[in-house]
């Protein structure tokens, strides 16, 4: 498991990429990935291209990110999820809170 984050050149977009298992073990690193930027980006992107597994505590972490990013007004995209991960997002109906594609 590893979490990498990258800010776009204009500082408006923060991309967080999770490799391997996205579960309780990534809790702290995932939080660090967005909390350490003092400037608030307009758009958050969670890239799950290399995420193999996701559990319900990972869903909780997405909610924390959404809360951090402004709750109802937050712009959080979840991209590149594989079919297993997509299934978990679909059962929980997280597409109602996040822009999932």
């Amino acid at each position, binding site marked *: 498991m590893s979490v990498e984050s990258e800010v776009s050149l204009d500082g408006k977009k923060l991309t967080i990429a999770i490799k391997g298992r996205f579960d309780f073990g990534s809790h702290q690193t995932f939080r660090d990935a967005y909390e350490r930027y003092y400037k608030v980006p307009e758009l958050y992107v969670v890239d799950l291209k290399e995420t193999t597994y996701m559990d*319900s505590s990972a869903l*909780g972490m997405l*909610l924390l990110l959404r809360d951090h990013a402004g709750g109802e007004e937050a712009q959080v995209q979840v991209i590149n999820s594989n079919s297993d991960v997509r299934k978990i997002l679909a*059962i929980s*109906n997280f597409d109602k809170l996040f822009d999932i594609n």
Partner: protein
Amino acid sequence: MSTLAPAPEALTILIAEDSATDLLLLSTIVRRQGHRVLTASNGEEAVEVFARERPQLVLMDALMPVMDGFGAARWIKQLAGEELVPIIFLTSLRESAALAECLDAGGDDFLPKPYNPLILAAKINAMDRLRRLQATVLQQRDQIARHHDYLLHEQRVAKAVFDKVAHSGCINAAPNIRYLQSPYALFNGDLLLAAYTPSGDMHVLLGDFTGHGLPAAVGAMPLAEVFYGMSAKGYGLVQILREMNAKLKRILPVDMFCCATLLCLSTQRRVVEVWNGGMPDGYVHDIASGKRTPLQSRHLPLGVLSAQAFDDRTEVWPMALGDRVFLLSDGVLDTADANDQLFGAVRLHQVFAANRDPDRLFEDIEKALAAFRGEARDDVSMVEITLQPGQSLRATGPLYADSGQSCPLDWAVSFEFRAETLKRYNPLPYLLQLLLEIHGLREQSGALYSVMAELYSNALEHGVLGLDSRLKRNAQGFAEYYRQRNERLAQLNSGFVRVHVQVVPTEAGGKMSLRLEDSGPGFDVEQVLARPLDIDRLSGRGLSLVRQLSSEVRWSDGGRSVCVEFCWGALA
């Protein structure tokens, strides 16, 4: 005298040496380095002094009379127990075998004679560091063990309290519920609740909290309280869901929520009403055709959305007597094999297809899981509820012992519920609570609630919303009926349901008349009552129920007004 690193703290050091000259020399060196010195002139004496004074470090001559240094070292190590008491052997031995024996006997290091004060000080310091490290490790180990015991104790207490809250319902008493919950399911966040409503419907909740252990149990308690409390008072799924969601949203941290399926099974109406937020598909099993209708997750889990954004839409499916509803937790589908492959819905459907005896479905699933994984997982929950006839209507609430001396017996009250209220408020629990102030009615509370519920939904659905009950003739029409109901209710901006209650004392006891009026177009009472019941498999059941349960039913005003009566005798 210069030392490289002075000892940070004075130690008590035992020196065991049979040569008086060497003993004096060594004692002087060690004392000069700031330590307190104890002495012994043979091994036996060394053990005695150690037992009495518990020095922190021992300098031990290997060859001594009475008991040699090797024997004494073994004794001292035994006496020291888990604590590290470093023993440095003093030796003029040169052969490797003899030096190795020093360490085998429990020695930690050796110092060749003649003594070099600088090396001696350095070795004492190094051994002291080891000694402190060991002491810290032991201290932390004990601390962790204490915390662990404490946590286990807390979990046991939480589980005991939780079991009382969670199992106060009918999950174990109802003959038509079968469930399987692994012993640790609770501490993996799974929650299973069941309760009867006043009209004999059954509410069932299967939930799954994010997180394990205490946090899950803590969230489960308010959920169980709301579920049991509101079910007993006659609230419907929508109100219960809203309350549970609002409560969890308020008390849980942002990253915690509860996936849940909530059901209301009604034998009287032959339907199951479902709300699924985040749980795997459940199934309604039509025994006659063998068809399984999935109960899909349509909503976000409980505790995520604010009360304003929460979506309380439920789905209603028809059921025949003997049909079953099956729910499961994700522990079943997420059971993984050695290659991290998940069991998944496809394999579950294979088990469904192969199942010959519906009563053995759980066993079949367990066998399939065990064969897939090699062992059973500890967080699997499954529940199956069969629609059975004859859940008798039950009296709710306490039957007070004051013989009703203080209860109101001569009064009347009227309500008018208008469009905005009809949209979002269910007045039945409130009305029931009010009527149960009349002690004579308490024994009939189940029948009373059922009749009120039927008359109210008739007034709302057929009267105010103008829905045709004949739509419910088959399963498709059934779904269409509830779709239209939701749509029309959402758009409602006029209309009313009035409820009039009249209570009078009689010679035998008392009589309560309940009259409901609605703003709808009315209906041809005689024609509807003449309709044979068996044609309408899914509709028309309500009126026959009302006629069975109340002593008199009368329609007036072209079907827009209906009046029922309940009588009771004097209380013993």
